[in-house]
């Protein structure tokens, strides 16, 4: 190896070069710059949303989301893998071209690995845990669980209508009375749990003391739309090139420019919109592989020579070779 390297350099003059000093200078300069930026500009830290804050700021939306989890009409209930076998968010690698397509779904192939039963995880489970503390709740839950699916739907549909006519005053939600059976008490309890901060704890993995997995509460917030509307105020939505952005006036992730650009252009924002994520990832993967293997791609691997920027990188050396001061070495 080293003999080959020496042969490679044969005939080319060398000059002293201090790598250690170079590293120390680079460290000093970068550290100084980082420290100055950190002292003067600090870093962003927008406080997290909680189920408590969400349920207090929009009690109607919160209950609507809980109802959707209970009767299976919500976003996560219909999402698809890895949470369940729904179809609403299943994406395919391969666009729809007229009546042809879609082709193939890695998402479906890999399947359900993070099972989420929205009715149980978001409503029935938490309510059962605290049932003993709320008068009438145990009975209500027995009634609900013992009823037929048709009966349960009738109750939740009736509650949906009533919820649409509800009035909000501050954190208080007044839902007109309805023929909703046990669902009325279940939903009002869910709202109280939310507003008192209990849902934040109940939605983490239950039956365990230590919790580090926020999948369930975050999926609920995603369904609620609370996260999205808060994000919109910071220009973080996908349609706002959000992938690249940061809260406040801080720089974001400029290096993701190509990925986020795809979402803004045709066909990713048109005929491929239903599979936009899968298609964007596929596109970026292909382009990245091309760049990665460019040394072996004929034509493309000569691009730097045609572009000619190298003449600036080695301008000193070329000048001296042309002047004859040093020999050109093959």
């Amino acid at each position, binding site marked *: *190896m*080293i003999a080959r390297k020496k042969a*490679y350099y044969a005939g080319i003059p*060398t*000059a002293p*070069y201090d*790598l*250690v000093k*170079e590293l120390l200078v*680079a460290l000093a*300069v*970068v*550290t100084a*710059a*980082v*420290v100055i930026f*950190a*002292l003067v*500009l*600090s*870093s*962003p830290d927008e406080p*997290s949303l909680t189920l408590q804050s969400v349920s207090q700021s929009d009690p109607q939306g919160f209950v609507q989301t809980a109802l959707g989890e209970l009767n299976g009409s919500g976003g996560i209930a219909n*999402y*698809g*893998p*890895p949470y369940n076998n729904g179809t609403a968010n299943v*994406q395919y*690698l391969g666009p729809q071209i007229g009546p042809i397509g879609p082709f193939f779904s*890695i*998402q479906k192939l890999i399947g359900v690995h*993070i099972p989420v039963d929205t009715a149980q995880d978001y409503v029935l489970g938490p309510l059962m845990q605290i049932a003993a503390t709320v008068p009438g709740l145990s009975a209500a839950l027995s009634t609900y669980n013992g009823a037929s699916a048709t009966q349960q739907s009738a109750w939740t549909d009736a509650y949906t209508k009533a919820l649409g006519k509800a009035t909000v005053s501050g954190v208080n939600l007044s839902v007109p009375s309805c023929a909703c059976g046990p669902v009325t008490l279940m939903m009002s309890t869910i709202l109280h749990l939310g507003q008192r901060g209990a849902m934040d704890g109940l939605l983490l993995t239950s039956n365990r003391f230590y919790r*580090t*997995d*926020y999948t369930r509460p*975050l*999926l609920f*917030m995603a369904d609620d739309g609370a*996260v999205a509307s*808060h*994000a919109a105020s910071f220009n*973080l939505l996908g349609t706002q090139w959000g992938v690249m952005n940061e*809260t406040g006036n801080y720089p974001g992730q*400029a*290096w993701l420019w190509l990925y986020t650009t795809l979402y803004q252009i045709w066909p990713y924002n048109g005929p491929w919109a239903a*599979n936009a*994520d*899968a298609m964007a*990832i596929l596109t970026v993967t292909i382009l*990245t592989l091309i760049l*990665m*293997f*460019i*040394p072996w791609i004929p034509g493309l691997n000569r691009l*730097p020579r045609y572009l000619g920027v*190298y003449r*600036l*990188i*080695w301008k*000193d050396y070329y000048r001296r070779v042309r002047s004859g001061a040093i020999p050109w070495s093959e």
Partner: protein
Amino acid sequence: MNLTERLQRRVSETLPYEELMPAEQPIYVHSYVYLFGIATVASFILLIVSGIILSVFGPQWWHSSTVGHFVNSAHFWSVQAFFFFMVLHLWTAFFSGAWRDGRGLTWVSGMVTFLVSILTAFTGYLSQQNFDAQWIGVQGKDALNAVGVGAFFDALNFGQMYGFHIAVLPVIVAGLVGLHLMLVRLRGVVRPYPLDVEAREGARAGAEEVPV
């Protein structure tokens, strides 16, 4: 047979000590663009140092401590510096055709480092425990789920993302950077494109590439 002796001989033949830290370079290594690589390394060192301090005090420390917030800010701006210089280093390597003469693996290792760094940054944003982390998780999960990765790599699972960010990925990035630096030392800095390319191409078609 003495395995230690064989390894020792192999290493001293392949990459002797003087080649790891040469005190001279060919004279064509003479442009400020050659500093972007080491500036990236310097940024990486800062990331590790500030990251270790943040880990020592726990993921919630910086939200309530002024010193903690400063360390977090240093970590935040080190990320900006890291990608800033890494991309400039990529442009330099690209415009100089640095993959020539058997340096393809050096180029590939650099590209892989770039990609793993992006993943490291992603897990870092998810570890912030603030609204940005919530948002990035809730959004990012759709892209990950669309290609099936979300079944095993759950952006909403703080414990998993934090573990990737402070342990698994930094080790991988450090290993890749080490490999990349070793390859540069093994092969040396690529020579400039030949002058009078057209004349030489005619005279010696294809000989420009030194076969490995």
